[in-house]
């Protein structure tokens, strides 16, 4: 593959791209509705039977939560079924020396201490680390705690309570703590999104490979003919 430097490489397969865009929408929906559950909109007048504001917001949150969970299960399956790039964020090569050198290089690159960025077909090592630990584990945390909170409502005997609430609640001690942690990690995901978008735009402008067009079309193109750094 080292001779494919000036050519395009098909990196993100269609299911990954589709999941990525839907997942982005779901995260926005979950963040907005989740925030409104903790800090509800202004009160509405009239009879209670005429309105279902909070009920609708909570329904959207729960529905989006189910989609997030199903999406992650699908995405994890695709890490197995798809190409090698689909696996990257799930299995960071934490034991590889090259990987950590790559991480270090990327840190220097973001600290303006190296002039030349490296050239990657897939994610750069720092991105892999960031997506794995913040995005994958963060999302998993939100799904588990989210279902545990949902199971409190569906009650004992429901599968949500049996699979999640029954063991998650004792870990956090009580429901209020669980709510607080679910809320805090939402902010972690918000920070992830901010950095993720900024870095994608910045890399698109400064690095030696395409970023934004790649997640739309799936094809990675390169700006020069030098050999890539993450090919085997």
């Amino acid at each position: 593959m080292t001779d494919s430097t000036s050519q395009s490489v098909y990196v993100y397969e269609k299911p990954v791209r589709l999941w990525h865009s839907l997942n982005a929408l779901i995260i926005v929906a979950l963040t907005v509705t989740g925030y409104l559950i903790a800090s509800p909109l202004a009160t509405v007048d009239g009879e209670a039977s005429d309105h279902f504001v909070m009920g609708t917001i909570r329904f959207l949150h729960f529905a989006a939560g189910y989609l997030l969970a199903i999406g992650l299960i699908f995405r994890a399956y695709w890490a197995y079924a798809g190409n090698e790039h689909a696996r990257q964020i799930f299995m960071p090569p934490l034991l590889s020396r090259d990987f950590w050198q790559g991480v270090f290089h990327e840190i220097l690159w973001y600290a303006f201490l190296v002039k030349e960025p490296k050239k990657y077909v897939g994610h750069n090592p720092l991105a892999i680390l960031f997506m794995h630990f913040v995005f994958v584990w963060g999302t998993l945390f939100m799904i588990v705690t989210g279902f545990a909170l949902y199971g409190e409502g569906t009650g004992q005997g429901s599968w949500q309570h049996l699979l999640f609430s029954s063991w998650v609640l004792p870990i956090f001690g009580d429901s209020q703590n669980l709510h607080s942690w679910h809320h805090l990690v939402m902010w972690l995901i918000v920070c992830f999104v901010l950095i993720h978008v900024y870095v994608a735009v910045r890399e698109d402008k400064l690095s030696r490979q395409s970023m934004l067009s790649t997640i739309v079309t799936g094809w990675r193109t390169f700006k020069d003919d030098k050999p890539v750094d993450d090919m085997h």
Partner: protein
Amino acid sequence: MIETFYDVMRRQGITRRSFLKFCSLTAASLGLSPAFVPKIAHAMETKPRIPVLWLHGLECTCCSESFIRSGHPLAKDVILSMLSLDYDDTIMAAAGHNAEAIVDEIVEKYKGNYILAVEGNAPLAEDGMYCIIGGKPFVEQLKYAAESCKAIISWGSCASWGCVQAAKPNPTRATPTHKIPGLADKPIIKVPGCPPIAEVMTAVVAYLLTFEKLPALDKQGRPQMFYSQRIHDKCYRRPHFDAGQFVEHWDDEAARQGHCLYKMGCKGPTTYNACSTVRWNEGVSFPIQAGHGCIGCSEDGFWDKGGFYERLSDINDFSIEANADAVGGTAAAVVGAGIAVHAGLTALNRSRKTGANQTGAEQQ
């Protein structure tokens, strides 16, 4: 021979008709089918009553106060006559050494057969010197009584979780029953609440005495029949929550209309208790019905979570007073500012580079 519950009741002047009424009431409050009524009646007629040793540690006696106000007068009379309250330092007649001798007597006489009810908790700091009963630290009395008991009931949030005397920084190291090191390994029923609902307390005792086994407990050791649902799940103001009708100030129209107290920090959505169904004082009312949000008094750590009138809990782990929005919002703002600075530096770096290139080109 020890008297049966029925004997005691008859002696107290309770008719058989009233006795059977009590049995069906107890069955109903325990969530049992009518088929259990004769079983309860039979048990009460034939079984000798089990003595209950009621100890008091660091507490405010609100559990006792609640208990003696058990809603149904008949239930109260019956339970009080069922309980062999030889030792309950709040209401017993004996005092001093005579009173303390009763503890030894019960422990010796009913070894392995009595129920140990603990109200309040034991402070462990300074070898337990912050709570002295009869000249000895309470923790020693508790361990001694627990050694030969059948089961332990942790009355209230003090014995169950620690409650206000265990609030940070907990100078006396007040410790809930199940966390006391070296306590005999006995089944513990937690009946949290500050205080617990009277009917919940009497029902738990009635269950123990009639069935001679523990009621079904949840993962945190609370009787499922009373602690398996949140106040919010059965709150009569729930329709206002779903509609999005909230009290925003204590004196607004929504408060007068009796709308949901969620925004006023009501902890109903995170509190497992039976207040919204059983209610208090013979079913007259409960905090939310009286217009005040639930403070979550039956939940672990409710005393250390910031204002009762805030929706979001305080997070004390950062040694600052903040809630999830303050911490998370600050983090997002810092990340946003960091991105702005980084983007600015990137632009500066780039223009310097292109500038240098241009100068280079001009020189050539």
